[in-house]
């Protein structure tokens, strides 16, 4: 089997990840942070260690600025719902995932004004276009760091510099880049960064979170969910302290322990080294695909403006047929269709049929890429 669906969920995971999860259940079964007994303390300590690992990954000094959530979608909902009020204006791009677009469309019905800045046909956003879309009421710019369809890596640093001078917050959707691209929130100029645990961070599904940049004042962000935090129990109002303000209810300790192990593995290997490996595979894929008659590859041509996501179509063939034959005849697993991002496909000109998407990961080998290319060539010929 050749697994080329890392943009959906990374697999396999480093052995450290399932080990950390099993050990959490076996050795630290208490409720993290709800009591002073030794099992609760050990559970809480492991959750805190994961918080620290995530903070180091994003170069945020205080780990309490890492808020855990069930996934990037929940973190994005927290940021969007917590920041935007009727009358506010928000700017986004034309290649966003539905994790951004659906909450924005709902907010639009409630009186938030929305501008969608068009991207070039390769999926890249022009920073000047974002700045031109700002109004006196703009509160937020929300952007995917890299498109889950075309792999286009947005020039976030330049965009953030242009919008922050107008007092606009920057929310980054790092679902495709956490663990795959070096990320320093202060250098990029990002106020809030949503990440998921089960892709590039090699953790289990059901983990993710929102990282608050050093200078972001949490007083301006309303919680999405309120409830028990193990702190200020005498109060019936939600506490203001981080991370409790945004983390109500018992945490997914097992998953977070796995996420922590995944992040530590990524940091030991080094994000830069992982990126170099994945980009070399993506280049091999792009060149090989371009040489197959009838195949059209989407996304930026310059590898440094991409992550390892390669989308393509084959003239006269349904993407669903190609996906099925890759799986059934060759054991090659990928994802076809719209990838939860209809806006991105409209930008590329691939709506409503969608594309075939190959997304290699840390454990993918060049030989596997070559086998996938040979398989596709045979499918195209027959």
């Amino acid at each position, binding site marked *: 089997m050749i697994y080329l669906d890392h943009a959906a969920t990374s697999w396999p995971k480093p052995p450290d990840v399932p080990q950390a999860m099993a050990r959490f259940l076996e050795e630290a079964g208490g409720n*993290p*942070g*709800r*009591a*002073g*007994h030794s099992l*609760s*303390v050990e559970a*809480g*300590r492991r*959750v*805190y260690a994961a*918080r*620290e690992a995530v903070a180091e990954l994003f170069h945020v000094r*205080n*780990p*309490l600025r890492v808020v855990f959530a069930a996934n990037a979608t929940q973190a994005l909902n927290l940021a969007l719902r917590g920041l935007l009020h009727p009358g506010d204006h928000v700017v986004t791009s034309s290649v966003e995932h539905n994790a951004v677009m659906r909450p924005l469309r709902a907010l639009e019905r409630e009186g938030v004004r929305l501008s969608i800045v068009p991207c070039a046909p390769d999926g890249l956003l022009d920073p000047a276009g974002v700045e031109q879309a700002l109004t006196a009421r703009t509160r937020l710019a929300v952007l995917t760091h890299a498109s889950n369809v075309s792999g286009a890596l947005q020039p976030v640093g330049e965009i953030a510099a242009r919008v922050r001078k107008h007092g606009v917050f920057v929310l980054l959707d790092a679902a495709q880049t956490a663990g795959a691209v070096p990320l320093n929130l202060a250098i990029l100029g990002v106020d809030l960064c949503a990440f998921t645990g089960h892709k590039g961070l090699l953790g289990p599904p059901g983990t993710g979170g929102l990282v608050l940049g050093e200078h972001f004042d949490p007083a301006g962000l309303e919680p999405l969910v309120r409830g028990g*935090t*193990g*702190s*200020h*129990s*005498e109060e019936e109002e939600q*506490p203001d*302290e*981080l*991370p*409790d303000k945004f983390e109500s209810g018992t945490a997914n300790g097992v998953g977070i322990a796995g996420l922590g192990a995944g992040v530590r593995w990524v940091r030991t290997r080094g994000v830069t080294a992982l990126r170099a490996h994945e980009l070399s595979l993506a280049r091999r894929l792009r060149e090989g695909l371009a040489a197959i008659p009838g195949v059209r590859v989407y996304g930026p041509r310059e590898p440094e403006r991409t992550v390892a996501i390669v989308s393509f179509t084959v003239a006269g063939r349904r993407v669903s047929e190609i996906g099925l034959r890759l799986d059934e005849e060759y054991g090659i697993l990928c994802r076809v269709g719209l990838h939860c991002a209809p806006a991105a496909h409209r930008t590329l000109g691939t709506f409503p049929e969608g594309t075939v998407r190959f997304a290699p990961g840390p454990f993918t080998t060049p030989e596997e890429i070559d086998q996938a290319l040979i398989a596709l060539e045979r499918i195209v010929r027959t």
Partner: protein
Amino acid sequence: MSEHGVVLFHTTSSAFRAERVLLAAGLEARLIPTPREFSSDCGMALRFDWGKRERVEELLREAEVEPAGVNAFSQ
């Protein structure tokens, strides 16, 4: 017996942060159930060497941890 102090916290996450910071600085630090004589909402308190009180408070400030209390504790 040397005298101990305890740091009380508003949140458990800040208790774990304080533990890490003190241990990293080479100080004695142990999370214990909050002693009954202190009222704190967090179930955990951090026991430390009372003689190092000023250094502990300085480290907590640097780590942006606002304690709910810092008390002498003779146990």
